């Protein structure tokens, strides 16, 4: 496998993130490098598309790198583009702009110009797998577990005979704690519990010996008491198989558990952008982006005294509803809801800034000297426009 192609030839305007990787991990090549990626959709049918240039910016200029044995948890509200980003990162979705590189090889170049590629597209395809949210729909209900698991083996490891294939399947069922494997292999999906189905899906992804697994809300459909168990299994298997994960979650508490146990990072997404990325403790104990603070505030706590008190508080946003992604706000996209927003936020878009710790954030407040600190408070200067928005979005 070729790992000799550095990504330095592609330093663009968004060089903050690239610099960061260069300085942090000097001799470690990322497995997966997402560079200034945007995914735009054109809504409507063919006529609407021809007549308007409206675009939904599902992902807008996102960069991050994934290393060996790494884990990045994408956290955000629904519609923030976390699934689109995840799918783009593993090559299921083609980015409108920017590039996704697997071990230095541009994924879409490899597919479209196979002759110039150092790594074949089928090899890339095998190296990146996905686990879906709902295991009930991810497994073919009319086939036995054994048949479900033998398909990928037949395609990618056709040197195996029937007996070897069966042994491999049993071995992987053991890896995902499905004992005895001979029994589970003969079952249909409806004879498995939700947790067992999800473990079959995990086993199926691992069969390909992938380098990266995208787990899209992989534990949300499970019972509360089983979620920690599933996350532990994922982490144990990460040690066994040296797999990196892109984990998608809307729950900050689960994100923290995973990222902390694996020594990974949490990336907070808002309207198609990563607004803050860093180690879990830093993101949660010392959030620099106001949106991260909002997410932290909204995560329910089980302590009844704290919860009782919090329920009386007003949310730390100026508006509860998310703006229309077809028409995102100018400047910093969060300024319409941000309690700290000032005049400059409505016009100037923040870049990614380093914080005192290891995280990067997309907020002017991370800079000690910035126009922001001299800018006028937004509430007064911008009242008219804001009132109009408020009555439209959240009227009373």
């Amino acid at each position, binding site marked *: 496998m070729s790992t000799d192609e550095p990504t330095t030839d592609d330093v663009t305007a968004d060089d903050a993130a690239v610099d960061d990787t260069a300085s942090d991990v000097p001799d470690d090549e990322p497995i997966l490098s997402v560079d200034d990626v945007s995914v735009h959709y054109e809504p409507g049918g063919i006529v609407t598309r021809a007549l308007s240039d409206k675009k939904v910016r599902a992902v807008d200029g996102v960069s991050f790198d994934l290393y060996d044995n790494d884990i990045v948890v994408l956290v955000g*509200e*629904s519609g923030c583009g976390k699934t689109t980003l995840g799918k783009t990162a593993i090559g299921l979705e083609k980015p409108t702009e920017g590039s996704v590189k697997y071990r230095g090889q541009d994924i879409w170049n490899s597919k479209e110009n196979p002759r110039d590629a150092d790594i074949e597209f089928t090899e890339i395809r095998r190296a990146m797998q996905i686990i879906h949210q709902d295991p009930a729909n991810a497994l073919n209900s009319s086939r036995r577990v054994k048949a479900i698991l033998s398909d990928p083996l037949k395609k990618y490891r056709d040197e195996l005979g029937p007996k070897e294939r069966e042994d491999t399947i049993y071995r992987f069922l053991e890896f995902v704690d499905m004992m005895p494997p001979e029994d589970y292999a003969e079952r249909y999906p409806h004879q498995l*519990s*939700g*947790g067992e189905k999800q473990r079959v899906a995990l086993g199926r992804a691992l069969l390909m010996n992938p380098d990266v697994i995208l787990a899209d809300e992989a534990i949300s459909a499970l*019972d*509360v*008491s*089983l*979620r*920690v*168990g*599933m996350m*532990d299994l994922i982490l144990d298997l990460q040690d066994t198989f040296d797999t990196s994960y892109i984990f998608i979650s*809307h*729950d*900050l*508490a*689960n994100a*923290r*558990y995973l990222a*902390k*146990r694996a020594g990974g990072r949490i990336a907070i997404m808002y309207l198609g952008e990563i607004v803050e990325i860093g180690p879990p403790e830093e993101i*949660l104990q010392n959030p620099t982006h106001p949106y991260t603070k*909002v*997410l*932290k*505030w*909204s*995560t*329910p*706590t*089980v*302590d*009844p*005294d*704290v*919860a*009782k*008190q*919090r*329920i*009386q508080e007003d*949310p730390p*946003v100026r508006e*509860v*509803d*998310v703006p229309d992604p077809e028409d995102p706000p100018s400047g910093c996209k969060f300024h319409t809801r941000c309690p700290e927003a000032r005049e400059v936020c409505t016009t100037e878009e923040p870049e990614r800034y380093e914080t005192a710790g290891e995280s990067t954030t997309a907020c002017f407040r991370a800079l000690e000297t910035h126009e922001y600190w001299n800018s006028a408070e937004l509430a007064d200067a911008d009242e008219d426009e804001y009132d109009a928005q408020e*009555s*439209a979005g*959240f*009227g*009373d």
Partner: protein
Amino acid sequence: MAIGQTNQSTADEETDDADEDIVMEVDDARVQFGMSRGQAWVLNDVSLDIRREEILAVVGESGSGKSMFAAALMDAVEDPGHLSGDVTYYPREEEGDDSPSADQIGSYDTVGDDAVDVLGMTDGELKNFRWEEVSMVFQGAMNSFNPTMKIKGHFHETIQAHNAVLEDRMEHVRDLFQALHLDPDRVMNSYPHELSGGMKQRALIALALVLEPEVLVMDEPTAALDLLMQRSIISMLRELRDEFDLTIVFITHDLPLVAGLSDRIGVMYAFEFIEVGDTRSLLKDAAHPYTRALLRSVPSIDSDIDAMQPIEGARPDPVNIPTGCSFHPRCPIADDRCEIEDPDLVSVDDDHSAACFYTDQARGELEYTLDHGATED
């Protein structure tokens, strides 16, 4: 506010009617389904009182029978399920008058002076009872509205089906929308697809309350929503309860969600309540091993991740519920007695009871921590 109804407001509902004023009483409710493998019990002799103007959270994992409990409250168990036992509804007494509000419930079969036997109602009575006395909000608001009808149409249809005065009710809807932070003009004239999930869910709550029911049953009402919207709706529910003197039964799998909302929590496991108690007491010092294990398995953003543990074992099969205490196969402190004898709910603290023989031992041996501090022994 409402016309034609005296709107009494009890000042300190949390303390005043804690022991006395019961709005619904469920007694030995049992739901069984005939399956090819045998009889499945999906509600197993459940008895619980719901107090007037309380917020009762019913917490359980999937397949614990919590939605079946909600259906039993309204006699809405679908065929071939069969519901037996008693569900009794006590209408609010008119202020300064001991008789029931006859205009509302005159047509029902009454078992006592003022009690209504829900399971004995005819179809017509049941139709009025639902929505006018007890109404329900289901999960997944996206699918509850008719996509070809404006929101306004849903309200009109409901009001007319119950022969209420349209203008009065729509007046009330404006109050409800106010409390739910919705813009009446915009929302009423929209089709469901034009609203966000959070707006639809709030509109649905308003629709459930349009006929001023006493009791609002909500089944995972915030499950499909974003965290922030979830939090906002939770806060609004508390305000709604205070403003409209509601009783709310909130069914969820998410224990942290109701920690700040509910007055009492009932924890369901294997189709029955295994622990019921005052929210603070139950969360701070749970007495049942299952509740303690559940609290230990819920990740939160402040807790110690090394202390977290999943619950070993699988949830029980409704056809084959374990003998004795249904939790004994997964319980770390179970012994022979637990395998044979089924524990009843017994009081462990003030307003807190648990169905376990060894609550002291559970509290002593099974540790868990809440977010911001240690639990008591």
